[in-house]
């Protein structure tokens, strides 16, 4: 019962993030999303008695729910991001597009649901979160929301890993975290607009 509730919350935070037009709000919803994801990992890990998942759950909570939003805020102050991010798709179309994406992905994952052990409906939600994160990336013009879209895509993939396969091998999860951190480092460098010097 609890897992259902938290997966619903995961999707809910993502959808609210799609409608917002302020950068700090978006970062806040991303951090809520990661928080719910971490709690989910801990819950499922406890149910399956899988130590690896517990560790990655805690890592998600620390890195993705606290660390990365803090760093993003730090970047936005340091590099003076544009904080007013109006979606290119106006709310009227988004209202139709988002349910259409939900229905489309649920329909798409229908054949998969028969083939996987474990609760197949969660896979449908992970796949729709993936598509909604793609939408988040596409609907904003500025770079910062695109980064957050990419990060939510990683969240959705992590959820898929947890629910579809009962956790990917530990090494892979650690590698994914490491890559995410490296992505942040690269982003930091990318934002530096150095002057052309010979």
């Amino acid at each position: 019962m609890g897992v259902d509730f938290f997966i619903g919350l995961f999707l809910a935070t993502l959808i609210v993030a799609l409608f917002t037009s302020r950068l700090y709000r978006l970062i806040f919803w991303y951090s809520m999303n990661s928080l719910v994801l971490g709690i989910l990992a801990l819950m499922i890990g406890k149910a399956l008695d899988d130590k690896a998942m517990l560790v990655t759950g805690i890592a998600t909570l620390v890195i993705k729910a606290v660390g990365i939003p803090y760093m993003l805020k730090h970047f936005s102050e340091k590099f003076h991001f544009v904080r007013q991010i109006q979606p290119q798709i106006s709310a009227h179309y988004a209202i139709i597009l988002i349910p259409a994406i939900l229905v489309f992905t649920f329909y798409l994952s229908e054949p998969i649901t028969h083939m996987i052990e474990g609760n197949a409906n969660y896979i449908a939600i992970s796949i729709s979160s993936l598509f909604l994160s793609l939408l988040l990336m596409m609907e904003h013009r500025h770079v910062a929301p695109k980064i957050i879209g990419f990060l939510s895509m990683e969240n959705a993939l992590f959820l898929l890993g947890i629910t579809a396969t009962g956790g990917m091998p530990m090494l892979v999860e650690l590698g994914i975290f490491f890559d995410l951190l490296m992505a942040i480092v690269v982003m930091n460098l990318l934002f530096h607009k150095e002057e052309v010097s010979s």
Partner: protein
Amino acid sequence: MLILLVLPALVMFAVSFSHHRKAKFLLPISSVAILLPIVKLFWLPKPYAIWGNYLVADRLDTYVLLISSLVGIGVTLALLTLDKHVKVSPKAYRRFYRFFAIFWVGLIISILANHMGIYWIGLELATLSTVYMIKTNHTPAAHKEAWNYMIVGAIAISLVLFGIILMYASAKPILGEEAMRFDLLLSHAKEIPSPFLFEMGFAIATVGMFVKMGFFPMNLWLANIERASFYPVAALFSGILESAVIIGFFRFSKIAEQINYAHLYGFVFVYTLLTIFIVAFLIFRAKDFMRLFSLSGVEHMALIALFWVSGGTFAALLHFGAHAFLKPALFLSTGVLESRGKYRIAGALRGYKGKKGELFWVLVSLFLLAIISLPPSPMFFSELYGFAAMVEMAKQSDHMLAMIAAILFLLVLLSVIFYRFVTLYQSMKYEGKEEEKRVYGSELAALVLFALCLLVLLLPSSFAYLRSIV
């Protein structure tokens, strides 16, 4: 063994922190050192486990690793004179080397990987480190393209991860946690309980990999990125990064072949034909070297993929090897060719004085002619064998006529590209003003290295080795 393999990269990383002007001349020497463990790997019995079950060297691995390392050495040589051709600050130059080192490490990990997850981690590491390398060129276009690359590259890599998760999920019931290993998947492919899930994962991962290589619909993305960055970055892309991606494709498709060959073939066939169709006409319209060469790279990669799934594995590997030497050579030479202006195609091959200059323009003309598969370039042979493999495969099924039509169509497209390159060569050689261009020793050394490698590839013993790989 692993330490020896990553040692040159670590040396490069360490040297990049020193401010000494001549420090970078140490690097080609240390990079050559990577050949020693690779040659040793050739003699060891395969499959040789380098790091448990995660990094395993089999014949395919060692071949691709050898080629990538040779390209890496060549690029290190050519990097010595980067600042003579383009404007780059010393700090950016050092950062470039740092990210090159990380890139090299990621590459070695992903090429040698036997574990899907490790493969993905290496690929992501390589992708992320190239992002900054694009930005070293401090123009607004490079800044925009670096972001573009980051976003699209991130999406492509995430698609690959998504595909990997689905494939892992499909094989987990029979293999448990070991379902991430390529060799186990290959041997147990027929026992996978839900083949449709695997196919879906494979399709998604392939779309991600194809997007990364610049296939439809992202053809111009890659061309723009390579245009906006320095020429060694483009050389790295086409030589090394694509080899990491294509080895993933090779492995995944071998497993998918066991599961449902018809689906695999149809999917890849249509995709690559569509890509070659679009790219042929884009090449026809390209007006500067970098875009031209990167689009031609896309076309060759598509041919490699097509040959591999048709069963012509020898042709695919030969084509891959030849392309991996020719394309970086051409990219490195654009540093010199464009030294008088980006769009000066006419007369680019004139105006070289002295022995070095003569050798340079002879080599570049030979490379240009080799890349459009004129004999005796290895590409000529590989295309012959590749088309033969396609016809051979069509004989087994009922689609002989369709296959012949497709091959004719491909030949028409290839001739469009051939025509463009020949007119390009003629205008480079015979038209335009004579403008003095300088060639530096290190670049020439890189080009000579590539030419020698190509000649080695043409030897019958190399052919025999390639035939024995799969």
